């Protein structure tokens, strides 16, 4: 765990850590990774987002157990070459490549992996890869999915995804609701930079206004807006709680000091907490309702929930209290 330091290089001796399973070096100033990283044959997770990487070493093709690669918010280029020399040789289930400098004309799908490519440069070639946001592949950060194309439903559900590549995480409950007869339109959102919805596509910490504008653009035609999210997505849901009448948040990260938000500048972390508390403090006056659900066996979740459970209009029910 070397995240959120000022590391400019990683020592070559990292290659001697052949039993290392997970390497977290996000939030540093790394411009490259050593070739010796390829010797870490036990590595299953490489978390190197928010650095200054311009390329990944070809030796990474030797990482025969690497399942998750998080390299968002770097300066990576050469997507085709990266695919050919590295990605094609790895058993990846998740490859988060968003917010880099890849040319999306080189975009591709990786059938066995979730692949996030949003917030890169240019557009994919016209066709099946352009503007896609599915559970396995994304070149955009949002998808508006009306219940009946061409007509407006009764409710807009704004669904924030948790970390990683673009995922239609809430498609299952959405389908259940539609099956019950409610015309539920959905706006799926993801954060390709993995920054608790605090970063904008231009790389600045203006994510709040960016996503607010995105939501308002879609929600302005609706009287009923329902916002939902879990984990990082729950943070996004609470950040924008003023844009809906009902908010459902599972395990939100309110204080980013208590979670993996160390790579965000201190001012941004404070701004996130302040924005959440500010949005929730208006809940009661607006006649809205926010429900926060947490796993009670998780200490950090409980601590996060306690930051908001005193606010009027915010309920933190125990999971056991939910009746089927």
């Amino acid at each position, binding site marked *: 765990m070397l995240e959120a330091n000022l590391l400019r290089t990683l020592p070559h001796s990292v290659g001697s850590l052949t039993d290392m399973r997970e390497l977290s070096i996000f939030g540093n100033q790394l411009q490259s990774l050593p070739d010796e990283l390829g010797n870490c044959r036990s590595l299953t997770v490489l978390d190197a987002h928010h650095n200054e990487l311009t390329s990944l070493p070809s030796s990474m093709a030797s990482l025969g157990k690497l399942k*998750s690669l998080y390299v968002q918010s770097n300066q990576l280029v050469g997507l085709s070459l990266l695919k050919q020399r590295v990605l094609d040789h790895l058993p990846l289930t998740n490859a988060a490549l968003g917010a880099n400098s890849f040319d999306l004309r080189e975009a591709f799908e990786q059938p066995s992996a979730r692949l996030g490519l949003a917030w890169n440069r240019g557009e994919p070639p016209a066709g099946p890869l352009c503007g896609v946001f599915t559970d396995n592949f994304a070149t955009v950060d949002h998808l508006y999915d009306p219940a009946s194309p061409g007509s407006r439903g*009764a409710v807009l559900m704004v669904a924030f995804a948790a970390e*990683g590549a673009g995922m239609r*995480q809430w498609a299952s409950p959405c389908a259940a*609701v539609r099956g019950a007869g409610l015309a539920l339109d959905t706006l799926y959102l993801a954060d390709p930079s993995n920054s608790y919805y605090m970063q904008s596509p231009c790389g600045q910490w203006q994510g709040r206004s960016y996503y607010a504008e995105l939501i308002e653009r879609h929600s302005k035609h*609706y*009287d*009923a807006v329902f916002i939902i999210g879990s984990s990082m997505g729950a943070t996004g849901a609470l950040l924008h709680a003023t844009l809906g009448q009902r908010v459902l948040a599972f395990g939100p990260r309110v204080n980013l000091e208590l979670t993996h938000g160390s790579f965000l500048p201190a001012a941004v972390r404070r701004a996130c907490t302040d924005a959440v508390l500010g949005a929730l403090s208006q809940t009661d006056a607006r006649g809205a309702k926010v429900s926060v659900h947490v796993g009670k066996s998780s200490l950090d979740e409980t601590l996060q929930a306690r930051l908001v459970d005193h606010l009027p209009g915010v309920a933190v029910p125990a999971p056991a209290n939910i009746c089927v």
Partner: protein
Amino acid sequence: MYKPKDLNLDWSPRFSTLWDKIGWIRANNGRKFEPWRVSKPFLRFLAYTDSRNFSRFLHQHWPEQVEYHDTFHHNLPMNLERSGALSVLVKRELLSLLLAVAGTAQTTGGGTTGRK
């Protein structure tokens, strides 16, 4: 105790490595602290520093502070979905929302559909 089979990979890519991650932490800290040599059993939680076990430790000593419940951060909606509660919960919230909107519309003389 949750098991890898309980992890729904559809919910978060992080889950694909969660089990490995916790196993790694336990093994690493176990080596570091050698808990089997710790004479005081209540200190053994030091060997398992992930929050679940620390929570369990807290629960054992201050049960009113943290109640043990076998859910972990990301898999809460997954657990609810598996027990059939997630859709019920979402429907309940939506019903509440629609009733509130309808009530507002009635008091202002508007319609009841929620559409503008």
